[in-house]
């Protein structure tokens, strides 16, 4: 038997259907939900995306028909589970342009992927005085692991500053990245502001100094075509749950020679070649970094998510998001009292619009919107340095994905007008 995902996404190389948003929406059962009697308008996709029936069915199918542990048994189910799990690895490798599926390491998510690099690469290769360059717009998960390594090893952590419009100061970046730089660890897209970082300008600066480059793709991989070889980077970290996949599964891609130079992350089963009472030797990459029984079902579910996105085409996904973001920037910009943060050109930002509503705290904005069925995120978005730079305690954030419509942006805008009226800020 063949064990491939049973959905249309499998035919990624076939001729694509036109971008039909109604057809897409029918694939997401949760979008039919109502919230207190009004239709759900889900605009919190930068936090997590919803899941299509194809992914949900793939998870169910695995548990119903193929469940077994991987890499361990000669029995049929174990062979099937291994084939599905390794098949997902291959799909993901192809999705990001990796030449070798063994360069795909399954983790719990972006956070674990970055921590893996800090632990296994950083501790092996960095010494006191070595510099790691990040930016002011990073998610906490690309700041805290390096701060921990700094405190442990005496490395120096440097930040490329943010300009008032939410973009990075490339002038300063050129002077920050120097001979002591050993790693540039940078987001491809800010989760708080949507800023798309000009990687093609930053990566050569690091490469010219012989430094490695890690890209935090948590917000970019779900929303645009990413090709690790074309970018010329060394690590890419991303999460499954923000790209239609299950929670609890993520990816670290690394260039094979770099991965081979690293020590294991955790010790245990599956990551060893041989264990005696005295010592152990390590398995090859990626097993070396996947100690213990992996998250088999969710990895397979992520494979189905990748099939779904591939069938749509990432260029089409991006085109749709530019369209809806452009509409949202104009529509929300017309709502009295709304201030939008970040770049105002939809080409320069992902489908994320962070804003404040004059006189109404983001928490109250979110509460009023919830009564209209509109789900947005409020708070610091795990990017407190960005909030500090903007001098706001928190923002409200709407973020879009493949299934969002301009009608939903209209629902957001009128809910914001209702919030203003309710709090009596504007007549």
């Amino acid at each position, binding site marked *: 038997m063949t064990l491939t995902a049973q959905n249309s996404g499998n035919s990624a190389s076939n001729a694509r259907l036109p971008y039909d948003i109604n057809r897409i929406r029918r694939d997401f059962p949760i979008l039919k939900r109502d919230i207190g009697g009004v239709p759900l308008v889900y605009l919190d996709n930068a936090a997590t995306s919803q899941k299509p029936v194809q992914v949900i069915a793939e998870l169910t199918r695995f548990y119903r028909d193929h469940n077994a542990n991987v890499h361990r048994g000669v029995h049929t189910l174990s062979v099937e589970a291994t084939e599905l799990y390794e098949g997902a690895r291959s799909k993901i490798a192809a999705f990001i342009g990796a030449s070798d599926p063994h360069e795909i390491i399954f983790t719990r998510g972006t956070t674990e992927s970055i921590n893996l690099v800090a632990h296994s690469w950083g501790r092996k290769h960095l010494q006191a005085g070595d510099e790691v360059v990040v930016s002011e717009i990073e998610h906490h998960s690309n700041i805290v692991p390096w701060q921990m390594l700094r405190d442990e090893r005496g490395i120096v952590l440097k930040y490329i500053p943010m300009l008032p419009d939410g973009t990075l100061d490339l002038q300063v970046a050129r002077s920050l990245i120097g001979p002591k730089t050993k790693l540039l660890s940078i987001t491809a897209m800010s989760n708080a502001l949507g800023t798309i970082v000009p990687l093609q300008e930053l990566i050569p600066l690091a490469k010219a100094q012989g430094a490695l480059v890690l890209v935090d793709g948590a917000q970019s991989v779900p929303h645009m075509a990413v090709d690790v070889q074309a970018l010329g980077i060394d690590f890419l970290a991303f999460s499954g749950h923000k790209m239609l996949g299950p929670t609890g599964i993520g990816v670290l891609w690394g260039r094979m020679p770099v991965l081979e130079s690293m020590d294991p992350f955790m010790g245990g089963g599956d990551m060893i070649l041989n264990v005696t009472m005295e010592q152990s030797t390590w398995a090859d990459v990626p097993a070396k970094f996947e100690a213990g029984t992996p998250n088999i079902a969710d990895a397979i579910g992520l494979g189905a998510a990748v099939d779904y996105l591939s069938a749509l085409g990432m260029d089409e996904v991006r085109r749709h998001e530019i369209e809806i973001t452009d509409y949202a920037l104009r529509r929300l910009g017309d709502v009295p009292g709304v201030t939008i943060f970040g770049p105002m050109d939809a080409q320069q930002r992902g489908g994320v619009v962070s804003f404040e509503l004059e006189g109404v*705290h983001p*928490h109250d904005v979110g509460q009023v919107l919830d009564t209209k069925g509109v789900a947005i*995120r409020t708070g*610091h*978005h795990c990017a407190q340095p960005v909030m500090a730079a903007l001098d706001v*305690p928190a923002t409200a954030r709407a973020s879009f994905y493949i299934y969002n419509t301009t009608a939903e942006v209209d629902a957001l805008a009128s809910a914001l007008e209702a919030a203003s009226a309710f*709090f009596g800020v504007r007549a």
Partner: protein
Amino acid sequence: MTTGSLLDDLYREILLDHYRQPRNHNPLDAPTCSADGSNPLCGDQVRIEVSVAGDRIVGISFSGRGCSISQASTSMMTEYVKGRSAEDARKGIDAFQQMMVTAESPGIEGFDDIEALIGVAKFPARVKCASLGWKTLEQALAGEGGAVTTDERSVEHA
């Protein structure tokens, strides 16, 4: 406009009134004790200054920024405790916290307006906003100064 009864339950008129026009919002000249409180996840901040003479709270003020519930609840709290004994204030703090759990009137004198916050108990995510000022007062009266948070979680996921 229609906002739904659920929303009206949460944001009662008296609450909005305190949010728009906070009471006791001018700093004291010579506070005898003070404390700072915050909910980092929401961005709620309050600072409370108290003047205690003998056992009586003769002056109280608050400052800060945050959501309507945190600021209005703190404003109502200052009105309640002003002129009362420190012991009565502590009873009020306990009664308020009880009210956030039971969603019932604690039936104590002077709580009429404050009972408008009963609706908050139905919104678990907002109880910590409503409690911030009261917890911060508790800290100030305990003379511990320092910082208070009513956030139970210390991390946020985006």
